[in-house]
């Protein structure tokens, strides 16, 4: 059980004179964690998860991912690190006009040169792997459909397959089920959890549904207004902690 991700005193401010979104966050993610991040909207969960692969630039603090200092990385090294981090998005972030297969293959773009990208010519190894993952998520019958012809749950499965194509060492999930209805949400979470366990990949997951968090995740971090209010095993989360995290600010 090694530490995969180590975040120390992370602060984020979008504009120089703007408000501080994250006010000094500290936490570690171990290699067998499936960690949930909960908290009210505006707490900074989305910002935090995007700092990990530097889609958002941190203002100060340190992020150590897979042994590398994320903030100090130059462009090329950053891209190489991003290849090892699979991200699944709230609104799926698929390329709508392209087929399911092309969307899944796009997970390998970090390993594909420009010329191959231009002709969308991926090696056979990648194609076989794409077929395997598509079967794994249950979309074998939809391979050649356009991404916007699928339902929400199906689209998220494409997103999952795409993330898996990267053979990631860490999964980042930004509210993966918020756009899905409850029954599908449960299926998708179970699918992700099962695959993560099977492949031995740790995950950090933004969730706003606390029930799902308690059901699927072994650790929980609670954020409120940019500050970490709870960090511990799921079993230790009490109702009073929840009230603390989700306390409404009384004006």
């Amino acid at each position: 059980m090694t530490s995969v991700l180590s975040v120390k005193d992370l602060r984020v401010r979008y504009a120089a004179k703007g408000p501080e979104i994250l006010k000094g966050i500290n936490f570690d993610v171990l290699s067998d964690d499936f960690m949930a991040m909960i908290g009210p909207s505006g707490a900074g969960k989305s910002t935090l998860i995007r700092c990990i692969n530097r889609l958002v630039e941190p203002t100060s603090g340190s992020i150590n991912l897979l042994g590398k200092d994320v903030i100090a990385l130059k462009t090329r090294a950053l891209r190489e690190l991003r290849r090892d981090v699979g991200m699944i998005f709230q609104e799926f972030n698929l390329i709508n006009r392209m087929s399911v297969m092309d969307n899944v293959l796009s997970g390998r773009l970090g390993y594909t040169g420009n010329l191959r990208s231009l002709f969308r010519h991926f090696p056979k190894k990648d194609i076989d792997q794409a077929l395997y993952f598509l079967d794994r998520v249950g979309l074998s019958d939809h391979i050649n459909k356009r991404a916007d012809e699928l339902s929400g749950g199906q689209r998220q499965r494409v997103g999952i397959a795409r993330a898996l194509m990267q053979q990631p060492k860490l999964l980042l999930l930004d509210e993966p089920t918020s756009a899905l209805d409850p029954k599908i949400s449960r299926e998708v979470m179970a699918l992700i959890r099962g695959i993560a366990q099977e492949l031995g990949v740790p995950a950090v997951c933004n969730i706003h549904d606390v029930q799902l968090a308690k059901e699927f995740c072994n650790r929980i971090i609670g954020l409120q207004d940019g500050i970490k209010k709870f960090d511990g095993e799921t079993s230790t989360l009490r109702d009073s902690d929840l009230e603390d995290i989700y306390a409404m600010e009384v004006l």
Partner: protein
Amino acid sequence: MSITQPHSDAFTGQIDMRRNRHLKMALGWGMFILFATWCVNGTIIADTDWSRIGGRNGVLASVGRYISLDLGLLSELIIPTIETFMMACVGTVLGCFFSLPVAWLGAANVTPSKHILYPLGRFLMVVSRSVHEIVWALIFVSAVGLGALPGILAIAMRSVGFISKITAEAIENIDAKPVEAVRAVGGNNFQVMYYGILPQIYPVVLATVIFEWDINIRRSAVMGLVGAGGLGLLFFRQMNSFNYGGVTMVILAILMLIVLGEVISHYLRKAVI
């Protein structure tokens, strides 16, 4: 409200507002008519030598000269007609190549430099649209000589403005989510553009190119008037030798090309969207 003041103040106020608006409209129309009269005077009345025109019969006779067909011209029409069509095609494609970088510069969300290159991109778009295709043709004829080449270049330069404007607007309206996804996977700038941006703008851009191609057929027909290839030269020569039947033939050839272009562009645009 009383007998002496039958309407409330609010109602009277509304009547005043309507009167004001009517007054403003009347004033506006009045100024418009004055301006129009000044224009008519300045242009038509002052400038026209009415005696030269020859009155109504003279005009009708002049128009009547065109109602004849010089069928002997048919064989001479073929090559310039084909050349006109080809000029429009090649010119449009060439214009596309230049539109892409200009659109890139002129799209606020992807331009590499908001203060220098973005205004430059916008400026190039405007210049391309402001300079008339005849002026472009003149510039290129003086640069590369006579023939089809200056015509192609002129059409390309003229098309850049509209195509890149629409492309830039399309780029500015894209959904950022696929772009984010490609970045998260470790994609470089080229892959972000090709997978994230291009699939989203592709239908609009293609439809615009087809639309502009259709217009370019019209433009390439007149390039020859200044020596830049196509039917224009034939038109010019027929006009100069007062062969009005020939002029009509050339016009018919142009109309035929335009109709062909309209039909093709109508079906192509349906297939793309």
